[in-house]
């Protein structure tokens, strides 16, 4: 369980996120939507503890993560961002192996190698394992990065003697930007299959409302740094709210796969 408790984050006196409270249960896919400048990306960065809120707390399973160690946190929290540039020529396999960095000290162990192989297969990048990442296309790169990020939290967090089994946290910070429609759908399907695990908390930002409608279990609608609505799709995405927050006129078209498709005017 992940909770935001009344969090506020400011830059230069302006609140990008203000007084946001929300809870995200494991086993479901939570997607954050909202117009440009609503604070979606900032909220994800706060939840993932890249940023720390000025007020309020971000709580992972009852614990404030403000002071959690960077290395310890990385064992159970992974974040996929937009396209990533690599400064030097690295092979695809080396990039994917980075996802295992939090889990080994000096050199990767057998389990790390195994997970990397598994994920390269899962994302269909095994064939260019030895290729230079810099020579890949945008879609290929993002597949490699997704393999890297999932490698970080692929296996359940090992339960130490004292602690109860802990959740794994996956954040998606607008990962679909620059991807074509086929890759967008493929990514979302894989995210969904991963986020179904009972110990996985998955929270993402997407721009496309239809994509959110198709894949989200829960939706958080942000508007100017505040939560406008949160809950299941049908409750959040009403015609009135869409009009109010996005300033467009929606038409709901019933379809088979997701129940509803939106057309805007």
């Amino acid at each position, binding site marked *: 369980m992940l909770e935001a408790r009344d969090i506020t984050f400011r830059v230069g006196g302006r609140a990008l996120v203000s007084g946001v409270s929300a809870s995200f249960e494991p086993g479901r896919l939570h997607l954050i939507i909202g117009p440009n400048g609503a604070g979606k990306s900032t909220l994800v960065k706060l939840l993932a503890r890249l940023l720390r809120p000025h007020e309020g707390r971000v709580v992972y399973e009852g614990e404030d993560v403000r002071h959690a160690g960077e*290395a310890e946190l990385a064992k159970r929290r992974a974040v996929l961002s937009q396209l990533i*540039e690599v400064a030097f020529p690295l092979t695809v396999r080396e990039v994917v192996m980075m996802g295992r960095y939090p889990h080994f000290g000096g050199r990767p162990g057998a389990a790390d190698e195994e997970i990397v192989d598994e994920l390269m297969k899962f994302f269909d990048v095994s064939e260019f394992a030895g290729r230079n990442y810099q020579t890949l296309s945008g879609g290929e790169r993002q597949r490699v990065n997704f393999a890297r990020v999932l490698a970080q939290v692929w296996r359940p967090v090992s339960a130490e003697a004292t602690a109860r089994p802990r959740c794994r946290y996956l954040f998606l910070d607008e990962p679909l930007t620059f991807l074509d429609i086929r890759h967008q759908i493929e990514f979302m399907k894989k995210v969904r299959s991963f986020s179904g695990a009972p110990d996985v908390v998955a929270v993402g930002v997407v721009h496309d409302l239809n994509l959110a409608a198709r894949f989200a279990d829960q939706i958080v609608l942000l508007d100017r740094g505040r939560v406008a609505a949160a809950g299941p799709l049908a409750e959040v995405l009403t015609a009135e709210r869409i009009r109010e927050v996005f300033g467009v006129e929606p038409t709901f078209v019933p379809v088979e796969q997701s129940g509803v498709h939106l057309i805007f005017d």
Partner: protein
Amino acid sequence: MTKQTWTRRGLLVALSFATLLVLAASIRYGAIDFSIPAIGRALVSLLPGQPEPTLDQRIFLELRLPRAALCLLVGASLGVGGALMQALFRNPIVEPGLVGTSSGAAFGSALFFVLGGALHLGSSLWSLPLAACLGGVVSTYLVFLLARSREDGRASIVMLLLTGLAVNALFMSAIGFLSYIARDPQARSITFWSLGTLSGASWRAVEVVAVSTVAGTAVALRYAKQLNALMIGEEEATYLGVNVNRLKWVILSVNVVVVAVATAFTGVIGFVGLVVPHILRMMGGADNRFLILGSALTGAMLLSLADLLARLSLRPAELPIGIVTSAVGVPVFLLLLRRRQYVF
């Protein structure tokens, strides 16, 4: 990975052998050549109960040998410093000399030399390298301070290089000023720091530089994985569990110590730190564990080679090694740059 690990391991082994070969040549040839039996006899004369070493043997033991050792260590220091700076800035065009570390360290040493004489400061084994470190810290910090943008506090690579250029010029002219006001025998020693030479090698220098090189390389290797993570960006590295701010401080400090201590005993030797990691990256990829170890070896080997050249080209006189490394390093670097298109 496994295949690449083997190639890298092979490369490191080959480099070690090459370094040993160069070392062998550099202790044999010079103003006087020593045959292998003569080298053996000189080493044997160190054993207890042996007759006093002859003059030739003493030249070998007290000049040639420490010089070869210092050369290896300084080369390793500069190579590691270059690898670290390039990893930290995520840019293959940076080296310790370019961000002011070397010239600041040289100025610190020269200033200590002048003031120490004038004020009769006690000079222990560590005071000169300490002065060099202080100089290196000041100049490196100055470059970063001046290169930072006013808006977001970050330094672009172009600003960094240009500021480095200016700060280098400043410290070099400060060294020039010191040698101008100093009296003659002192003045000539001061130019030593701006040209770079290994002629002042002694076993004491070897001891000090050995400590900084070995310790610096060991610390750097511990952070190799974190430097790798930095290759995909600061934010991403944070997500992978790296404390980026601490990493920056550690790596900058290691770089300043390693490069400044070397500079204290040899003066400014440019382009080793720039060219060495570049060559290695082309041969074995960008993994920092490999790059740091490889740069230590390659730096040691190339600097020994350069020193051999410096000693043999004008026999029995010698060239300052900084001239040799620049003369060889600059064209090699330009060639590398043109062959591989780096955008920065």
